[in-house]
Protein backbone atom coordinates (compact mmCIF):
# COMPACT_ATOMS: atom_id res chain seq x y z
CA UNK A 1 0.00 0.00 0.00
CA UNK A 2 1.17 3.49 -0.78
CA UNK A 3 1.45 5.86 2.15
CA UNK A 4 2.04 9.58 2.40
CA UNK A 5 3.51 11.11 5.51
CA UNK A 6 2.88 14.79 6.16
CA UNK A 7 5.00 16.31 8.87
CA UNK A 8 3.28 19.33 10.37
CA UNK A 9 4.59 21.79 12.90
CA UNK A 10 4.85 25.48 13.52
CA UNK A 11 8.05 25.09 15.43
CA UNK A 12 10.28 27.87 14.12
CA UNK A 13 13.60 27.23 12.49
CA UNK A 14 15.20 24.39 10.59
CA UNK A 15 15.95 20.96 12.10
CA UNK A 16 19.05 20.69 14.28
CA UNK A 17 22.15 19.38 12.49
CA UNK A 18 21.92 16.16 14.52
CA UNK A 19 18.31 15.63 13.50
CA UNK A 20 19.12 16.48 9.90
CA UNK A 21 21.93 13.92 9.88
CA UNK A 22 19.75 11.23 11.46
CA UNK A 23 16.96 11.84 8.97
CA UNK A 24 19.47 11.60 6.12
CA UNK A 25 20.60 8.21 7.45
CA UNK A 26 17.04 7.02 7.87
CA UNK A 27 16.29 8.15 4.33
CA UNK A 28 19.27 6.22 3.00
CA UNK A 29 18.25 3.10 4.87
CA UNK A 30 14.71 3.32 3.53
CA UNK A 31 15.88 3.83 -0.04
CA UNK A 32 18.11 0.78 0.33
CA UNK A 33 15.20 -1.19 1.77
CA UNK A 34 13.16 -0.35 -1.32
CA UNK A 35 10.38 1.27 0.69
CA UNK A 36 10.89 4.99 0.15
CA UNK A 37 9.59 6.26 -3.18
CA UNK A 38 9.81 10.02 -2.80
CA UNK A 39 10.37 12.62 -0.13
CA UNK A 40 11.11 16.27 0.32
CA UNK A 41 11.25 19.18 2.71
CA UNK A 42 9.19 22.27 2.02
CA UNK A 43 10.23 25.89 2.33
CA UNK A 44 8.33 27.92 4.95
CA UNK A 45 4.79 28.94 4.08
CA UNK A 46 5.91 32.60 4.29
CA UNK A 47 7.76 32.05 1.02
CA UNK A 48 4.74 30.47 -0.64
CA UNK A 49 1.12 31.50 -0.90
CA UNK A 50 -2.42 30.32 -0.39
CA UNK A 51 -5.25 30.54 -2.86
CA UNK A 52 -8.51 30.29 -1.01
CA UNK A 53 -12.19 30.16 -1.84
CA UNK A 54 -14.48 31.74 0.73
CA UNK A 55 -18.03 32.91 0.16
CA UNK A 56 -17.67 31.85 -3.43
CA UNK A 57 -14.79 34.23 -3.99
CA UNK A 58 -11.25 33.38 -4.97
CA UNK A 59 -8.54 35.20 -3.07
CA UNK A 60 -4.78 35.09 -2.95
CA UNK A 61 -3.01 35.33 0.38
CA UNK A 62 0.66 35.94 0.00
CA UNK A 63 2.90 33.82 2.21
CA UNK A 64 3.86 36.38 4.87
CA UNK A 65 0.18 37.03 5.57
CA UNK A 66 -0.95 33.42 5.86
CA UNK A 67 -2.23 32.61 9.30
CA UNK A 68 0.04 29.69 10.09
CA UNK A 69 -1.09 27.17 12.63
CA UNK A 70 0.48 23.76 11.95
CA UNK A 71 1.91 23.85 8.46
CA UNK A 72 3.30 21.02 6.38
CA UNK A 73 7.08 21.15 6.51
CA UNK A 74 7.88 17.95 4.71
CA UNK A 75 6.40 14.89 3.09
CA UNK A 76 7.40 11.38 2.13
CA UNK A 77 5.81 8.69 -0.02
CA UNK A 78 6.41 5.07 0.93
CA UNK A 79 5.34 1.70 -0.41
CA UNK A 80 4.60 -0.40 2.67
CA UNK A 81 3.01 -3.70 3.58
CA UNK A 82 0.32 -2.65 5.99
CA UNK A 83 -0.92 -0.03 8.43
CA UNK A 84 1.23 -1.46 11.23
CA UNK A 85 4.37 -0.99 9.18
CA UNK A 86 3.28 2.55 8.33
CA UNK A 87 2.84 3.39 12.00
CA UNK A 88 6.14 1.77 12.98
CA UNK A 89 7.94 3.93 10.40
CA UNK A 90 6.29 7.12 11.65
CA UNK A 91 7.12 6.22 15.25
CA UNK A 92 10.76 5.80 14.43
CA UNK A 93 10.84 9.08 12.53
CA UNK A 94 9.15 11.03 15.31
CA UNK A 95 11.33 9.38 17.97
CA UNK A 96 14.35 10.87 16.19
CA UNK A 97 12.82 14.32 16.62
CA UNK A 98 12.20 13.65 20.27
CA UNK A 99 15.77 12.51 20.85
CA UNK A 100 17.68 14.90 18.66
CA UNK A 101 15.70 18.14 18.76
CA UNK A 102 14.34 18.59 22.27
CA UNK A 103 11.55 21.12 22.40
CA UNK A 104 10.34 20.35 18.89
CA UNK A 105 6.64 19.68 18.65
CA UNK A 106 4.47 18.64 15.80
CA UNK A 107 2.53 15.91 14.07
CA UNK A 108 3.28 13.23 11.55
CA UNK A 109 0.14 12.44 9.63
CA UNK A 110 -0.05 8.93 8.13
CA UNK A 111 -2.28 8.88 5.05
CA UNK A 112 -3.03 6.04 2.66
CA UNK A 113 -3.42 6.63 -1.04
CA UNK A 114 -6.82 5.91 -2.48
CA UNK A 115 -6.27 2.85 -4.66
CA UNK A 116 -8.33 1.45 -7.53
CA UNK A 117 -10.80 -1.25 -6.46
CA UNK A 118 -8.73 -4.13 -7.95
CA UNK A 119 -5.85 -3.43 -5.62
CA UNK A 120 -7.42 -2.39 -2.34
CA UNK A 121 -5.36 -1.51 0.71
CA UNK A 122 -5.30 -4.29 3.25
CA UNK A 123 -6.05 -2.35 6.42
CA UNK A 124 -7.43 0.99 5.34
Amino acid at each position, binding site marked *: MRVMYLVKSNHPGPPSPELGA*AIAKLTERE*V*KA*GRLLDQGGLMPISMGAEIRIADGKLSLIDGPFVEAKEVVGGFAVF*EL*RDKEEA*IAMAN*EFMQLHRDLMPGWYGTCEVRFFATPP*HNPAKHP
Partner: protein
Amino acid sequence: MNDAHRAILAVWRIEQPRLITSLARMLRDVPLAEDLTQEALLAALEHWPVSGIPDKPGAWLMATAKRKALDHLRRGKMLARKHAQVAHELEQHEQIVPDLDSALDDDIGDEMLRLIFTACHPRLARESRAALALRMICGLTTAEIARAFLVPEPTIAQRITRAKRTLSESGLAYETPRGPELPERLSSVLEVVYLIFNEGYTAARGDDLLRHELCDEALRMARALTAVAPHEPEAHGLLALMELHAARAAARTDAAGDPVLLADQDRSLWDQLQIRRGLQALARADELAGGAGFYVLQAAIIACHARAAAYADTNWPHIASLYGHLMTLSPSPVIELNRAVAVGMAEGPEAALSIVERLTQEPALRRYHLLFSVRGDLLQKLGRLAEARADFQAAARLTANRREQDLLERRASSCITLPSATAATGS
Protein backbone atom coordinates in the same frame (compact mmCIF):
# COMPACT_ATOMS: atom_id res chain seq x y z
CA MET B 1 -2.36 -12.84 14.79
CA ASN B 2 -3.77 -9.97 16.84
CA ASP B 3 -3.12 -6.25 16.37
CA ALA B 4 -0.34 -6.10 18.98
CA HIS B 5 1.45 -8.97 17.26
CA ARG B 6 1.08 -7.34 13.86
CA ALA B 7 2.53 -4.10 15.22
CA ILE B 8 5.51 -5.99 16.69
CA LEU B 9 6.04 -7.91 13.46
CA ALA B 10 6.05 -4.62 11.55
CA VAL B 11 8.74 -3.14 13.81
CA TRP B 12 10.80 -6.30 13.60
CA ARG B 13 10.57 -6.35 9.80
CA ILE B 14 11.99 -2.86 9.56
CA GLU B 15 14.95 -3.91 11.72
CA GLN B 16 15.30 -7.44 10.34
CA PRO B 17 17.82 -6.73 7.52
CA ARG B 18 20.18 -4.98 9.91
CA LEU B 19 19.81 -7.72 12.52
CA ILE B 20 20.50 -10.56 10.14
CA THR B 21 23.37 -8.84 8.32
CA SER B 22 25.08 -7.78 11.58
CA LEU B 23 24.80 -11.26 13.01
CA ALA B 24 25.92 -12.89 9.78
CA ARG B 25 28.99 -10.68 9.73
CA MET B 26 29.83 -11.52 13.34
CA LEU B 27 29.04 -15.22 13.23
CA ARG B 28 30.08 -15.84 9.63
CA ASP B 29 27.07 -18.14 9.48
CA VAL B 30 23.98 -16.94 7.61
CA PRO B 31 21.57 -19.74 8.62
CA LEU B 32 22.45 -19.27 12.28
CA ALA B 33 22.08 -15.52 11.93
CA GLU B 34 18.62 -16.10 10.49
CA ASP B 35 17.63 -18.38 13.39
CA LEU B 36 18.74 -15.80 15.93
CA THR B 37 16.92 -13.01 14.14
CA GLN B 38 13.77 -15.11 14.45
CA GLU B 39 14.51 -15.72 18.12
CA ALA B 40 14.75 -11.99 18.69
CA LEU B 41 11.28 -11.69 17.16
CA LEU B 42 9.95 -14.36 19.51
CA ALA B 43 11.47 -12.52 22.46
CA ALA B 44 9.80 -9.29 21.34
CA LEU B 45 6.46 -11.08 20.94
CA GLU B 46 6.87 -12.36 24.50
CA HIS B 47 7.96 -9.12 26.18
CA TRP B 48 6.51 -6.21 24.28
CA PRO B 49 2.82 -6.99 24.76
CA VAL B 50 3.53 -6.51 28.48
CA SER B 51 6.19 -3.81 28.48
CA GLY B 52 5.03 -1.92 25.41
CA ILE B 53 7.19 -1.36 22.32
CA PRO B 54 10.44 0.26 23.55
CA ASP B 55 11.43 3.75 22.39
CA LYS B 56 14.36 2.26 20.50
CA PRO B 57 13.03 -1.09 19.31
CA GLY B 58 15.98 -1.56 16.97
CA ALA B 59 18.53 -1.32 19.77
CA TRP B 60 16.46 -3.69 21.91
CA LEU B 61 16.23 -6.28 19.15
CA MET B 62 19.92 -6.00 18.35
CA ALA B 63 20.96 -6.39 21.99
CA THR B 64 18.64 -9.37 22.37
CA ALA B 65 19.88 -11.05 19.22
CA LYS B 66 23.51 -10.56 20.21
CA ARG B 67 22.84 -11.96 23.66
CA LYS B 68 21.25 -15.00 22.08
CA ALA B 69 24.22 -15.40 19.77
CA LEU B 70 26.49 -15.40 22.78
CA ASP B 71 24.29 -17.92 24.62
CA HIS B 72 24.31 -20.12 21.58
CA LEU B 73 28.08 -20.09 21.32
CA ARG B 74 28.53 -20.73 25.05
CA ARG B 75 26.08 -23.62 24.94
CA GLY B 76 28.13 -25.34 22.27
CA LYS B 77 30.45 -27.75 24.01
CA MET B 78 33.07 -27.68 21.32
CA LEU B 79 34.02 -24.10 20.80
CA ALA B 80 36.16 -24.05 17.76
CA ARG B 81 38.78 -21.33 17.65
CA LYS B 82 36.66 -19.36 15.29
CA HIS B 83 33.79 -19.49 17.70
CA ALA B 84 35.98 -18.52 20.62
CA GLN B 85 37.11 -15.49 18.71
CA VAL B 86 33.59 -14.58 17.69
CA ALA B 87 32.40 -15.02 21.26
CA HIS B 88 35.12 -12.68 22.43
CA GLU B 89 34.07 -10.06 19.90
CA LEU B 90 30.47 -10.42 20.96
CA GLU B 91 31.33 -10.05 24.62
CA GLN B 92 33.08 -6.83 23.80
CA HIS B 93 30.04 -5.69 21.87
CA GLU B 94 27.83 -6.56 24.76
CA GLN B 95 29.71 -4.32 27.13
CA ILE B 96 28.97 -1.36 24.97
CA VAL B 97 25.58 0.00 25.91
CA PRO B 98 23.54 0.07 22.72
CA ASP B 99 23.39 3.75 21.91
CA LEU B 100 20.36 5.15 20.27
CA ASP B 101 21.84 6.28 16.98
CA SER B 102 23.88 3.19 16.29
CA ALA B 103 20.81 1.69 14.74
CA LEU B 104 21.18 4.11 11.88
CA ASP B 105 24.93 4.41 11.85
CA ASP B 106 25.90 1.21 10.12
CA ASP B 107 25.74 1.31 6.40
CA ILE B 108 24.37 -2.13 5.68
CA GLY B 109 24.50 -1.78 1.89
CA ASP B 110 27.40 -4.18 1.33
CA GLU B 111 26.11 -6.60 3.92
CA MET B 112 22.70 -6.54 2.30
CA LEU B 113 24.21 -7.35 -1.05
CA ARG B 114 26.08 -10.29 0.46
CA LEU B 115 22.86 -11.53 2.00
CA ILE B 116 20.97 -11.25 -1.28
CA PHE B 117 23.68 -13.17 -3.13
CA THR B 118 23.67 -15.86 -0.43
CA ALA B 119 19.88 -16.34 -0.38
CA CYS B 120 19.82 -16.60 -4.17
CA HIS B 121 22.86 -18.84 -4.54
CA PRO B 122 22.69 -20.91 -7.74
CA ARG B 123 23.61 -24.02 -5.78
CA LEU B 124 20.23 -23.87 -3.98
CA ALA B 125 17.18 -25.38 -5.62
CA ARG B 126 15.20 -22.84 -7.60
CA GLU B 127 12.03 -22.81 -5.52
CA SER B 128 14.11 -22.83 -2.35
CA ARG B 129 15.87 -19.65 -3.42
CA ALA B 130 12.56 -17.80 -3.73
CA ALA B 131 11.37 -18.98 -0.31
CA LEU B 132 14.69 -18.23 1.33
CA ALA B 133 14.88 -14.78 -0.23
CA LEU B 134 11.37 -13.90 0.94
CA ARG B 135 12.27 -15.09 4.41
CA MET B 136 15.77 -13.64 4.78
CA ILE B 137 15.51 -10.46 2.73
CA CYS B 138 11.85 -9.51 3.13
CA GLY B 139 11.26 -10.99 6.58
CA LEU B 140 8.13 -12.87 5.54
CA THR B 141 6.99 -15.69 7.82
CA THR B 142 6.82 -19.25 6.56
CA ALA B 143 3.03 -19.09 6.77
CA GLU B 144 2.94 -15.94 4.63
CA ILE B 145 5.23 -17.44 1.99
CA ALA B 146 3.13 -20.63 1.92
CA ARG B 147 -0.10 -18.66 1.45
CA ALA B 148 1.41 -16.57 -1.32
CA PHE B 149 2.72 -19.57 -3.25
CA LEU B 150 -0.39 -21.68 -2.58
CA VAL B 151 1.76 -24.39 -1.11
CA PRO B 152 1.24 -26.11 2.27
CA GLU B 153 3.20 -24.51 5.09
CA PRO B 154 5.28 -27.64 5.90
CA THR B 155 6.47 -27.71 2.29
CA ILE B 156 7.84 -24.17 2.54
CA ALA B 157 9.30 -24.88 5.98
CA GLN B 158 11.05 -27.90 4.53
CA ARG B 159 12.40 -25.95 1.56
CA ILE B 160 13.80 -23.32 3.88
CA THR B 161 15.34 -25.86 6.24
CA ARG B 162 16.91 -27.73 3.37
CA ALA B 163 18.27 -24.57 1.79
CA LYS B 164 19.73 -23.43 5.09
CA ARG B 165 21.33 -26.82 5.58
CA THR B 166 22.88 -26.60 2.12
CA LEU B 167 24.25 -23.18 3.00
CA SER B 168 25.68 -24.44 6.29
CA GLU B 169 27.17 -27.62 4.92
CA SER B 170 28.58 -26.36 1.68
CA GLY B 171 30.60 -23.69 3.47
CA LEU B 172 29.70 -21.16 0.77
CA ALA B 173 31.60 -17.97 1.28
CA TYR B 174 29.46 -15.16 2.64
CA GLU B 175 30.73 -12.50 0.28
CA THR B 176 29.88 -10.46 -2.74
CA PRO B 177 31.03 -12.36 -5.81
CA ARG B 178 33.50 -10.57 -8.03
CA GLY B 179 35.11 -11.07 -11.40
CA PRO B 180 33.93 -13.83 -13.72
CA GLU B 181 31.64 -15.29 -11.04
CA LEU B 182 29.61 -12.10 -10.76
CA PRO B 183 27.46 -12.30 -13.94
CA GLU B 184 26.26 -15.84 -13.15
CA ARG B 185 25.54 -15.00 -9.52
CA LEU B 186 23.76 -11.78 -10.43
CA SER B 187 21.61 -13.50 -13.01
CA SER B 188 20.59 -16.02 -10.36
CA VAL B 189 19.50 -13.15 -8.09
CA LEU B 190 17.55 -11.46 -10.88
CA GLU B 191 15.93 -14.74 -11.82
CA VAL B 192 14.70 -15.26 -8.24
CA VAL B 193 13.31 -11.74 -8.01
CA TYR B 194 11.53 -12.07 -11.36
CA LEU B 195 10.16 -15.47 -10.38
CA ILE B 196 8.65 -13.99 -7.23
CA PHE B 197 7.19 -11.11 -9.24
CA ASN B 198 5.68 -13.38 -11.88
CA GLU B 199 4.21 -15.66 -9.26
CA GLY B 200 2.20 -12.66 -8.11
CA TYR B 201 1.67 -11.01 -11.47
CA THR B 202 0.32 -13.96 -13.38
CA ALA B 203 -1.74 -15.16 -10.43
CA ALA B 204 -4.48 -17.20 -12.02
CA ARG B 205 -5.40 -19.03 -8.85
CA GLY B 206 -5.95 -18.26 -5.22
CA ASP B 207 -6.44 -15.08 -3.28
CA ASP B 208 -5.43 -12.47 -5.83
CA LEU B 209 -4.80 -9.80 -3.24
CA LEU B 210 -2.36 -11.91 -1.28
CA ARG B 211 -0.53 -13.03 -4.36
CA HIS B 212 -0.33 -9.50 -5.63
CA GLU B 213 1.76 -8.74 -2.56
CA LEU B 214 4.46 -10.93 -4.04
CA CYS B 215 4.83 -8.28 -6.76
CA ASP B 216 5.39 -5.68 -4.06
CA GLU B 217 8.00 -7.86 -2.35
CA ALA B 218 9.82 -8.40 -5.63
CA LEU B 219 9.72 -4.67 -6.36
CA ARG B 220 11.11 -3.87 -2.93
CA MET B 221 13.86 -6.41 -3.45
CA ALA B 222 14.78 -4.97 -6.85
CA ARG B 223 14.74 -1.41 -5.50
CA ALA B 224 17.00 -2.54 -2.67
CA LEU B 225 19.26 -4.31 -5.15
CA THR B 226 19.63 -1.25 -7.38
CA ALA B 227 20.30 0.90 -4.33
CA VAL B 228 23.12 -1.32 -3.07
CA ALA B 229 24.43 -2.38 -6.51
CA PRO B 230 23.87 0.76 -8.58
CA HIS B 231 26.24 -0.17 -11.39
CA GLU B 232 24.44 -3.24 -12.70
CA PRO B 233 22.36 -2.32 -15.78
CA GLU B 234 20.37 -5.56 -15.69
CA ALA B 235 19.27 -4.91 -12.10
CA HIS B 236 17.92 -1.53 -13.18
CA GLY B 237 16.43 -3.22 -16.23
CA LEU B 238 14.57 -5.77 -14.14
CA LEU B 239 13.35 -3.07 -11.78
CA ALA B 240 12.12 -1.03 -14.76
CA LEU B 241 10.41 -4.07 -16.26
CA MET B 242 8.56 -4.86 -13.03
CA GLU B 243 7.64 -1.25 -12.22
CA LEU B 244 6.19 -0.80 -15.71
CA HIS B 245 4.29 -4.07 -15.55
CA ALA B 246 2.96 -3.40 -12.06
CA ALA B 247 1.91 0.12 -13.08
CA ARG B 248 -0.83 -1.47 -15.21
CA ALA B 249 -2.17 -3.74 -12.45
CA ALA B 250 -5.40 -1.83 -11.89
CA ALA B 251 -6.27 -1.86 -15.60
CA ARG B 252 -5.47 -5.51 -16.28
CA THR B 253 -8.73 -6.97 -15.04
CA ASP B 254 -12.29 -5.70 -15.14
CA ALA B 255 -14.71 -5.51 -12.24
CA ALA B 256 -15.58 -9.20 -12.68
CA GLY B 257 -11.91 -10.16 -12.57
CA ASP B 258 -11.73 -10.96 -16.28
CA PRO B 259 -8.52 -10.06 -18.10
CA VAL B 260 -8.54 -6.87 -20.17
CA LEU B 261 -6.31 -6.88 -23.25
CA LEU B 262 -3.66 -4.19 -23.53
CA ALA B 263 -5.53 -2.66 -26.46
CA ASP B 264 -8.68 -2.25 -24.36
CA GLN B 265 -7.15 -1.11 -21.08
CA ASP B 266 -8.24 2.16 -19.53
CA ARG B 267 -4.89 3.91 -19.47
CA SER B 268 -6.08 6.45 -16.95
CA LEU B 269 -5.88 3.61 -14.42
CA TRP B 270 -2.17 3.16 -15.04
CA ASP B 271 -0.10 4.29 -12.09
CA GLN B 272 1.85 7.29 -13.35
CA LEU B 273 4.18 7.50 -10.34
CA GLN B 274 5.20 3.92 -10.93
CA ILE B 275 5.59 4.46 -14.67
CA ARG B 276 7.88 7.40 -13.93
CA ARG B 277 9.97 5.23 -11.64
CA GLY B 278 10.12 2.51 -14.26
CA LEU B 279 11.24 4.93 -16.96
CA GLN B 280 13.85 6.37 -14.59
CA ALA B 281 15.24 2.91 -13.88
CA LEU B 282 15.34 2.20 -17.60
CA ALA B 283 17.18 5.48 -18.26
CA ARG B 284 19.66 4.59 -15.55
CA ALA B 285 20.26 1.19 -17.19
CA ASP B 286 20.80 2.87 -20.56
CA GLU B 287 23.44 5.18 -19.07
CA LEU B 288 25.47 2.25 -17.78
CA ALA B 289 27.94 0.39 -19.94
CA GLY B 290 26.78 -2.92 -21.35
CA GLY B 291 23.20 -1.67 -21.30
CA ALA B 292 20.95 -3.64 -23.60
CA GLY B 293 20.62 -6.98 -21.78
CA PHE B 294 17.71 -9.38 -21.45
CA TYR B 295 15.78 -7.41 -18.84
CA VAL B 296 16.68 -3.98 -20.20
CA LEU B 297 15.34 -4.88 -23.66
CA GLN B 298 12.10 -6.24 -22.23
CA ALA B 299 11.72 -3.12 -20.12
CA ALA B 300 12.33 -0.99 -23.21
CA ILE B 301 9.48 -2.82 -24.95
CA ILE B 302 7.04 -2.27 -22.09
CA ALA B 303 8.19 1.34 -21.91
CA CYS B 304 6.91 1.84 -25.48
CA HIS B 305 3.44 0.92 -24.21
CA ALA B 306 3.81 3.03 -21.07
CA ARG B 307 4.72 6.08 -23.14
CA ALA B 308 1.77 5.70 -25.51
CA ALA B 309 -1.18 7.77 -24.31
CA ALA B 310 -3.48 5.56 -26.39
CA TYR B 311 -3.12 2.14 -27.98
CA ALA B 312 -3.13 3.72 -31.44
CA ASP B 313 -0.08 5.83 -30.46
CA THR B 314 2.09 2.77 -29.78
CA ASN B 315 5.44 2.83 -31.55
CA TRP B 316 5.15 -0.64 -33.11
CA PRO B 317 8.15 -0.39 -35.48
CA HIS B 318 10.37 0.32 -32.45
CA ILE B 319 8.85 -2.57 -30.50
CA ALA B 320 9.42 -4.90 -33.47
CA SER B 321 13.06 -3.85 -33.65
CA LEU B 322 13.53 -4.33 -29.87
CA TYR B 323 12.14 -7.86 -30.20
CA GLY B 324 14.65 -8.34 -33.03
CA HIS B 325 17.48 -7.39 -30.64
CA LEU B 326 16.05 -9.69 -28.00
CA MET B 327 16.01 -12.54 -30.55
CA THR B 328 19.71 -11.99 -31.29
CA LEU B 329 20.54 -11.90 -27.59
CA SER B 330 18.42 -14.79 -26.45
CA PRO B 331 16.72 -16.64 -29.33
CA SER B 332 13.40 -18.24 -28.42
CA PRO B 333 10.28 -19.07 -30.43
CA VAL B 334 8.11 -17.25 -27.87
CA ILE B 335 10.07 -14.03 -28.37
CA GLU B 336 9.83 -14.52 -32.14
CA LEU B 337 6.05 -14.88 -31.79
CA ASN B 338 5.96 -11.60 -29.91
CA ARG B 339 8.04 -10.02 -32.64
CA ALA B 340 5.50 -11.29 -35.14
CA VAL B 341 2.71 -9.50 -33.28
CA ALA B 342 4.69 -6.25 -33.33
CA VAL B 343 5.54 -6.67 -37.02
CA GLY B 344 1.85 -7.27 -37.67
CA MET B 345 0.98 -3.97 -36.02
CA ALA B 346 3.84 -2.10 -37.70
CA GLU B 347 3.70 -3.52 -41.23
CA GLY B 348 0.40 -5.35 -41.48
CA PRO B 349 -0.89 -8.91 -41.00
CA GLU B 350 0.67 -10.33 -44.17
CA ALA B 351 4.26 -9.75 -43.00
CA ALA B 352 3.48 -11.14 -39.57
CA LEU B 353 1.76 -14.22 -40.91
CA SER B 354 4.87 -15.38 -42.75
CA ILE B 355 6.82 -15.25 -39.44
CA VAL B 356 4.09 -17.15 -37.63
CA GLU B 357 3.89 -19.80 -40.36
CA ARG B 358 7.61 -20.45 -39.90
CA LEU B 359 7.02 -20.79 -36.16
CA THR B 360 4.40 -23.50 -36.61
CA GLN B 361 7.33 -25.81 -37.41
CA GLU B 362 8.75 -25.23 -33.90
CA PRO B 363 8.19 -28.30 -31.70
CA ALA B 364 8.16 -26.07 -28.58
CA LEU B 365 5.13 -24.16 -29.86
CA ARG B 366 3.13 -27.10 -31.17
CA ARG B 367 0.74 -26.95 -28.21
CA TYR B 368 1.22 -23.26 -27.36
CA HIS B 369 -2.22 -21.64 -27.40
CA LEU B 370 -0.87 -18.15 -28.10
CA LEU B 371 0.60 -19.28 -31.40
CA PHE B 372 -2.89 -20.22 -32.57
CA SER B 373 -4.58 -17.18 -31.14
CA VAL B 374 -2.01 -14.87 -32.79
CA ARG B 375 -2.40 -16.61 -36.13
CA GLY B 376 -6.17 -16.56 -35.75
CA ASP B 377 -6.01 -12.82 -35.18
CA LEU B 378 -3.87 -12.27 -38.29
CA LEU B 379 -6.09 -14.47 -40.42
CA GLN B 380 -9.16 -12.67 -39.17
CA LYS B 381 -7.63 -9.35 -40.16
CA LEU B 382 -6.90 -10.79 -43.60
CA GLY B 383 -10.53 -11.85 -43.90
CA ARG B 384 -9.68 -15.59 -43.92
CA LEU B 385 -12.41 -16.22 -41.40
CA ALA B 386 -12.84 -19.98 -41.60
CA GLU B 387 -9.13 -20.52 -40.91
CA ALA B 388 -9.19 -17.88 -38.17
CA ARG B 389 -12.13 -19.58 -36.51
CA ALA B 390 -10.33 -22.94 -36.50
CA ASP B 391 -7.25 -21.33 -34.93
CA PHE B 392 -9.23 -19.63 -32.16
CA GLN B 393 -10.93 -22.92 -31.42
CA ALA B 394 -7.58 -24.72 -31.29
CA ALA B 395 -6.22 -22.03 -28.96
CA ALA B 396 -9.27 -22.35 -26.68
CA ARG B 397 -8.70 -26.10 -26.46
CA LEU B 398 -5.05 -25.62 -25.55
CA THR B 399 -5.35 -23.09 -22.75
CA ALA B 400 -6.04 -24.19 -19.19
CA ASN B 401 -7.24 -20.77 -18.09
CA ARG B 402 -11.03 -20.68 -18.17
CA ARG B 403 -11.29 -16.93 -18.65
CA GLU B 404 -8.93 -17.04 -21.57
CA GLN B 405 -10.92 -19.96 -22.97
CA ASP B 406 -14.11 -17.90 -22.86
CA LEU B 407 -12.41 -15.04 -24.64
CA LEU B 408 -11.05 -17.30 -27.38
CA GLU B 409 -14.39 -19.01 -27.91
CA ARG B 410 -16.03 -15.60 -28.24
CA ARG B 411 -13.46 -14.68 -30.85
CA ALA B 412 -14.04 -17.96 -32.68
CA SER B 413 -17.76 -17.33 -32.90
CA SER B 414 -17.15 -13.79 -34.15
CA CYS B 415 -15.49 -15.28 -37.24
CA ILE B 416 -18.69 -16.04 -39.09
CA THR B 417 -18.23 -16.41 -42.80
CA LEU B 418 -20.87 -14.50 -44.65
CA PRO B 419 -20.86 -14.42 -48.42
CA SER B 420 -20.31 -10.66 -48.34
CA ALA B 421 -17.59 -10.69 -45.69
CA THR B 422 -14.74 -11.34 -48.07
CA ALA B 423 -13.19 -7.91 -47.63
CA ALA B 424 -10.53 -7.68 -44.96
CA THR B 425 -11.07 -5.42 -42.01
CA GLY B 426 -8.41 -2.96 -42.96
CA SER B 427 -8.01 -1.47 -39.51
